[in-house]
């Protein structure tokens, strides 16, 4: 069994929808509806999907920014929800860090870079000012910035440089897992490559595990060891990244890949015709019955709108939730 760092089991997160004078709850937005996944030590798992898929909500649960509706999170085999407040503070929080999407709002504009990077150390450790100062300098070098830049303010840096500072802050407490919420989608193409290379190097250097949230499949293929394709709060296909990208099984995965593929019109061969989905993303307040994708699916059969598809194991580490007969 590979060395599992973190496992999410049947995670559910519902947001109440209230109405009326007394704010009575009349329905639930099932943002994350029973998803399970594992993150191995030193490896990257990506949650991929479009708006409303529940990727960011899932990340928030892992970062304990919100309370799960149901389900369990195991960190190194121990159930996180059973941790005491003290255990959380020493065992979990310092070892799980995050890098946010927008470089312009992920840093306090009133703080110098030195204090931004040092804050995790100041809050969680009793290190002296001198120890923290040298650690900050070391972190800046790790992410390719000069230590003397520690005294500047965030607005004096470009988007790419700010993401480097955010990564330095995430590494401050030597975490085991870093949650990367769309780490490069706000950056220009040329800068994006620099940051993705940096993240990969750091993973090798510090044996870091990444949980990447992204919607750009090409970025995901470069970064990930395993991938989970999400649609409307559920995982529809899960497995080893190369396996999934070489043989996409779920019609949604194929449509998503076709929409992200960089193919010139004249290179489109007969069978690789682009798949264009019809209709719009249904509202998460009342998702379609049975398989949630059946309303837009190119392969939809009548069973799809009745029963919820179970997990069909294909390769050794590749399963898909779909009624397609070709999978049996």
């Amino acid at each position: 069994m590979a060395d599992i760092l973190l496992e999410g089991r049947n995670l559910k997160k519902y947001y109440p929808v209230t109405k009326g004078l007394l704010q009575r709850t009349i329905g639930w937005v099932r943002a994350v509806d029973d998803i399970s996944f594992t993150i191995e030590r030193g490896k990257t798992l990506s949650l991929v999907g479009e708006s409303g898929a529940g990727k960011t909500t899932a990340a928030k649960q892992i970062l304990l920014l919100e309370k799960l509706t149901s389900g369990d999170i195991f960190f190194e085999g121990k159930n996180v929800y059973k941790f005491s407040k003290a255990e959380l503070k020493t065992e979990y929080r310092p070892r799980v860090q995050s890098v946010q999407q927008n470089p312009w709002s992920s840093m306090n504009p009133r703080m110098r870079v030195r204090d931004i990077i040092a804050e995790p150390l100041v809050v969680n450790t009793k290190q002296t000012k001198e120890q923290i100062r040298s650690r900050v300098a070391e972190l800046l070098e790790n992410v390719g910035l000069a230590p003397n830049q520690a005294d500047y303010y965030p607005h004096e840096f470009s988007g790419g440089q700010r993401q480097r500072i955010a990564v330095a802050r995430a590494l401050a407490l030597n975490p085991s897992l870093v949650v990367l919420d769309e780490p490069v989608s706000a950056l220009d193409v040329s800068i994006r490559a620099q940051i993705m290379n940096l993240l990969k190097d750091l993973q090798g250097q510090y044996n870091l595990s990444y949980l990447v949230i992204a919607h750009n499949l090409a970025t995901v293929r470069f970064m990930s060891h395993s991938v989970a394709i999400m649609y409307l709060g559920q995982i529809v296909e899960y497995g080893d990244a190369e396996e999934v990208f070489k043989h996409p099984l779920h019609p949604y995965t194929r449509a998503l890949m076709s929409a992200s593929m960089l193919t010139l019109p004249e290179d489109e061969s007969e069978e690789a015709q682009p798949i264009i989905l019809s209709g719009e993303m249904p509202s998460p307040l009342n998702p379609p019955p049975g398989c949630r994708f059946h309303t837009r699916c190119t392969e939809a059969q009548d069973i799809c709108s009745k029963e919820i598809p179970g997990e069909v194991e294909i390769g050794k580490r590749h399963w898909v939730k779909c009624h397609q007969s070709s999978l049996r």
Partner: protein
Amino acid sequence: MSEIVLKVEDLHTSFFTRAGEFKAVDGVSFYVREGETFGLVGESACGKTVTGLSILRLLPEPAGKIVGGKIILDGKNILELSKKEMRAYRGSMISMILQDPMTSLNPVYTVGDQIAESVRQHQHIQDSKMVEDQVISALRLLRIPAPEQRLHDYPFQMSGGMRQRVVGSISMSCYPRVLIADEPTTALDATIQAQYLALFKDVQKKTNVAIIFITHDFGVVANICQRVAVMYAGKILETAKTSTIFKAPKHPYTIALIHSVPRLDRKDDRLYSIEGQPPSLLNLPPGCRFAPRCPDVMDICREQQPPEVEIEEGHSVSCWKVK
């Protein structure tokens, strides 16, 4: 080959601010034919959006000014038009789609009203029944389901993809000669974007409109553009057919840019990345704008700006290395 609808010759647009003159567009030339989609691609602050706004003469007052060049639409230099004449052109001869569907529509008026407005403005139809038919046909052109009902909806009752279609209906309602699309799909999800681009090609087939497509996403360029210009710091570095840009680019910047886009069809270990940062538009380097970051830089590159050389039919490059 259909005839040229719009020709931009040596366009210069600058912003005059307290900090000095920002040369946002510094000598840009290209043309677009009827029924053709011409791509303007480049990273942030390369001047592609300013080029679009210059064509429509909608630069932010008082700082933005067109300081040089010509914009010829059907043989007429629209820079010489009076304010009133230019206003008559906007919406009827040239139209534009903006990036964020969430903010492009007026929140307090129904979708139908906003389309009817440009129909009444340009086609001078006063009879409300005829106007409504035009509105419905515009909605149908962009394949919006149940147009008869949807036209009474307010923008906030629609999804991002649907709103962008409404913006499309507004801009196409008077059948313009040229449509400028400024990153219309950037704010949309991948599958919705694919849907929108397919719709765009269909609309072009039906109306034969010339489209200038502004984007930073090479996937979109490959999907929809026939010819492409790569822009960097206010200048066009290379113009060619889309397949040439992807398969045989000549300018070092284009090569590097294509190379640094992560590919879905293969697994790379490391991505090629261009070092350094784009130059500030306030104090641009004297020679070639890309010189400070160019892997094949030569001395001459730092002193003089390279001329635009047409190395083959329809493929021109501005680089000293390319003869």
